[in-house]
């Protein structure tokens, strides 16, 4: 408790300022989005941001090629990004922590096989793996979550395995075993508390990367499908109109950048607080 109070006093203001609006948009976006983000209105197509043309505050960030309000789409896009990346990273974390714990604790052949598997997967560029999985599963929300879970679990497995290996040999674990604790109790009560900090740090650091991967997949048309709004998809659609409509790619891109920057700063801060030895990864 004391530790958390101390941490709370030094919260990273910049990261919070960047992430907070994104979080609000993701949670309550529909409530305050000025227009219907999916309403097609060809007569309003490709309007420049209204404050530039002196048309007041109706379409602040302009409209896209189908006359949809860019601001509303940017706001609503936060939801799919957050759902996909948070769930994906949590799934990856749960899988990776479990496998890493067992791999480190059991050792032997199981450990060897798991670590080989991690090596194999890491010998493939992440984006190619993501492409293959999306090609196999088809596009969509679930597919992207699966992609993120599969691409990211290896990092947890490696780090958690390493820490389990070292904690396993410490005196208190040996004592616990002498006292007759079951393996399950040793894992849950004695080992997990020591590895959970690293897992939390990795999860936070991965969040930014997950947002980028999600954006890249939806840019390639392999992410969430319309009518659900995704920032990457908005940028992909904007490519045809860059000669006339600069506002189409600009604003979704800035939002992605703000989200990733916030997540990265938050992750860096958490790492320095909880687990500075993770600096290398």
């Amino acid at each position, binding site marked *: 408790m004391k530790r958390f109070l101390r941490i709370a006093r030094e919260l990273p203001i910049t990261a919070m300022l960047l992430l907070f609006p994104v979080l609000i948009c993701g949670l309550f976006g529909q409530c305050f989005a000025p227009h219907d983000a999916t309403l097609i209105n060809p007569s309003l197509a490709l309007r420049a941001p209204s404050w530039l043309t002196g048309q007041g505050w109706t379409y602040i960030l302009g409209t896209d090629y189908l006359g949809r309000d860019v601001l509303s789409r940017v706001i609503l896009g936060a939801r799919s990004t957050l759902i996909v990346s948070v769930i994906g990273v949590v799934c990856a974390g749960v899988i990776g922590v479990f496998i890493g714990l067992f791999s480190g604790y059991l050792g032997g052949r199981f450990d060897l096989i798991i670590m080989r598997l991690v090596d194999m997967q890491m010998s493939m560029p992440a984006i190619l793996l993501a*492409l293959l999985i999306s090609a196999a599963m088809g596009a969509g929300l679930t597919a992207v979550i699966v992609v993120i879970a599969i691409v990211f679990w290896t990092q947890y497995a490696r780090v958690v395995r390493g820490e389990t290996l070292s904690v396993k040999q410490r005196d208190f674990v040996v004592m616990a075993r002498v006292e007759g604790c079951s393996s399950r109790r040793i894992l849950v009560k004695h080992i997990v508390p020591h590895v959970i900090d690293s897992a939390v740090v990795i999860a936070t650091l991965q969040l930014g990367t997950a947002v980028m991967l999600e954006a890249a997949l939806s840019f390639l048309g392999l992410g969430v499908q319309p009518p659900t709004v995704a920032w990457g998809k908005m940028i992909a659609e904007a490519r045809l109109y860059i000669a006339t409509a600069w506002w189409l790619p600009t604003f979704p891109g800035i939002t992605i950048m703000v989200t990733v*920057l916030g997540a990265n700063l938050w992750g860096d801060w958490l790492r320095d607080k909880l687990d500075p030895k993770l600096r290398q990864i």
Partner: protein
Amino acid sequence: MLRYFLKRLLAGFICLLGVSIIIFVAVRLSGDVTELLLPEDATQEDFTRLRAELGLDKPIPVQYVIFLKNACQGNFGRSTRWMRPALELVLTRLPATFELGIVAFLFAISLGLLAGVTAATHRGKWIEQVVRLGALCGQSMPSFWIGIMLMLIVGVQLHLLPTSGRGGFSHIILPAITLGAFSMASQSRLTRSSMLNVLGADYIKMARLKGNPERTVIWKHALKNASIPIVTLAGFQLADVIGRAVIVETVFAWPGLGKLIIDAVYARDYAVVQAGVGLLSTIYVFINIGVDLLYGFLDPQIRYE
């Protein structure tokens, strides 16, 4: 050393075996190829015949062994879209990817190094803040967005550079900047921190005391001692750049391997996807082995176990 090399090579081949399984499984899960190959009015017999011809009627493990044997001989099948052997197609696109990757890599490394060293030697000045902020932003921008914004500003608004295709040197500038931006950001962050670690050391003070000009102290004495993490990261970045080229090539219509793979995914041209992903992963694995070995040359203290 030789032992380590052979061991590492063996591990690399095992990894490639794993990659081949991943590719095989992914392509099998993607659906029935015969439905794509045959016209809509094909009869049941046509399907059976084609499945037998392609070996799809055999058990899955047998199919995998056949796939692996063919892959080792460079036979990934024929592209259904281009009507040419997939490997041949992939190899003709490889030089373009290498060209882009190497230019982007050199750009990223040299500028990243320069920025990182400058930031470290100007502690607390505005230039350090600019480099740090730039690096943070550079790591937060998706490469496709950087590409589109560069096209928008430099290509469309200013008419300075061509925005798509491959041609003279002017064609490669924008894609290379786009592809290199992320690596440059990471490189400058790492260079800065490892230079800061070194600059406080006694031998740097000694080098200054001996009357060396500041330039020599920084670029020779300090950078040399800070170089191991920098070179390691640079090596991994070379591998990474080849991987990330997939997206940048799509943005700039650069006729490389990455664009070919993406087009093949859209066209469900699985032979090309297999060959392309297989080749890229092989390159990736070998670059990583090379980096591991290089690491040992640079730092003799590292013992290969």
